């Protein structure tokens, strides 16, 4: 009756969220007096999971699963859960895992709680705290079904190292043609760039930058920090930046460690999308901009002076701390 996680990988390497899930599941398993099993799909080296508390790995290797297929992946997770007799199944909040979780829940006849932000408040009854109302509130949800599916909110738990080794076991679930009814025709993915979803730091800019030609310094600031670049909705609506960079309520959600907003006033729709970030910095000429109300650190000043100066300071800092 172990706790099962789906440890997501890309090009064979585990994503950070997979290690966060392992850390979280270990604590849940301890409170239930059980162990953690991870199911992996086409991951090459699974030993890393042991460092974060995974006791056993069900290793699935199947070329048909090289391309993501929600139905097939959900089928793998369901069969792994059944094999392990898992009572708690934990997934992450990546785009793929949020696609899978409701399918897995229905297939396991399990109650499902998404946006989980902390360890269960109690395991009997099983209660978890969740983000709701676009981060303007939380709710405590009680799950009464025998099997429970949780989706852990990104960056809400962090990594906890454990000493231990994961025992790997090959696992070959039976897949059928219906699992592959949806055909992937093509995939367009940026390479060599930090994506907003995976980034620890996001540098975002708004209309205060006056025009798309001024984004060079934003890209440079992001490069110094190893950050992803993002933008506000007006900027994407004006086509100054690609739509894929739009963050906010109707854009991409951000739950980074550090979010730096340059020339963004902080409309409520913007804040709703980025508020899960741990530390927020605002740079704005207007000290009355609403962003200052939600930021941890603020600089009142002209972005065209502050950003280049900050880049220099960060370069000095990086050189010293390299």
């Amino acid at each position: 009756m172990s706790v099962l996680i789906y440890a997501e990988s890309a090009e064979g390497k585990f994503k950070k969220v997979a290690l966060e899930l392992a850390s979280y599941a270990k604590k849940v398993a301890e409170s239930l007096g059980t162990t953690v099993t991870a199911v992996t799909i086409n991951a090459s080296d699974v030993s890393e999971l042991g460092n974060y508390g995974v006791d056993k790995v069900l290793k699935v290797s199947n070329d048909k699963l090289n391309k993501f297929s929600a139905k097939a992946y959900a089928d793998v997770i369901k069969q792994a859960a059944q094999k392990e007799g898992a009572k708690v199944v934990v997934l992450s909040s990546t785009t793929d895992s949020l696609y899978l979780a409701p399918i897995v829940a229905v297939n396991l006849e399990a109650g499902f709680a998404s946006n989980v932000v902390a360890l269960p408040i109690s395991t009997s009854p099983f209660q978890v705290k969740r983000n709701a109302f676009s981060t303007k509130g939380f709710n405590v949800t009680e799950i009464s079904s025998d099997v429970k599916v949780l989706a852990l909110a990104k960056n809400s738990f962090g990594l906890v190292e454990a000493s231990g080794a994961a025992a790997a076991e090959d696992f070959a679930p039976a897949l059928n043609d219906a699992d592959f009814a949806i055909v992937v025709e093509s995939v367009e993915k940026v390479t060599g760039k930090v994506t907003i979803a995976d980034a620890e730091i996001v540098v975002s800019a708004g209309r205060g930058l006056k025009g798309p030609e001024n984004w060079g310094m934003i890209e440079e600031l992001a490069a110094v920090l190893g950050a992803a670049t993002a933008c506000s909705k007006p900027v994407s609506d004006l086509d100054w930046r690609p739509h894929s960079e739009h963050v906010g309520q109707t854009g991409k959600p951000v739950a980074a460690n550090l979010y730096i907003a340059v020339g963004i006033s902080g409309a409520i729709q913007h804040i709703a999308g980025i508020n899960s970030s741990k530390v927020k910095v605002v740079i704005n000429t207007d000290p009355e901009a609403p962003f200052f109300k939600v930021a941890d650190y603020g600089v009142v000043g002209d972005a065209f002076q502050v950003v280049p100066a900050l880049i220099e300071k960060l370069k000095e800092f990086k050189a010293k701390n390299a």
Partner: protein
Amino acid sequence: MKILVCISHVPDTTSKINFTNGDTEFDTNGVQFVINPNDEFGLTRAIWFKEKQGAHVTVVNVGGADTEATIRKALAIGADEAIRVNANPTDGFFVAKQLAEVVKNGGYDLVIAGKESLDYNGGMVPGMLATILGYNFVNSCVGIEVEGNTAKVTREIDGGKEILSAGLPLVVGGQKGIVEEKDLRIPNMRGIMTARTKALNVVEPTGVEALTKVVKYESPAPKSACKIVSADNLDELVNLLHNEAKVI
């Protein structure tokens, strides 16, 4: 083509979120309700299918009589008819079960639901609905074309997008991108007038065993004040981010 658009009735983004009755209920007092934005993008695409490909568009909501103003707005935007399942939407699975009944009775080719609602942000309903029905399902849909019995669907993925080919019947979880913000429609007077005469059928819910329930709400802890760093002293900002916030 018969399209069903599932809409949620949610507090407008600018609403103050308060709780009442010992923090066990969301306080709707003074709250303005709207069509969930992710649903409105999907609805707008459905109207496009109606105008370009002769689709018939039904909207459905699971909720009490207080949601009818929101449903009428969807009719004013251009949906042909509406269904309200007369029940309090207790959790995602409950709603998905109710919608599955509506789909079974209506024989829809395409079901569009927002990938998540702005109130509970659960992101559950489209995937659960498709799985209950055994239909194909694509989430985070940012583009859809239908030709004959096949849909070409663009799905947003982390760091890009993928193009999928899926047979009908199909459920998609819509979001911005399925249409753009500028494509959204504000109901005109004619739309509002005709919406009054369109059918809004109320159906009673099917029994579902609850798997989850909300036992309590909490408001976020009050935020400490923003530390202002002088633009002439950015060393201090670097120092704070490194030593205090520990994020660089």
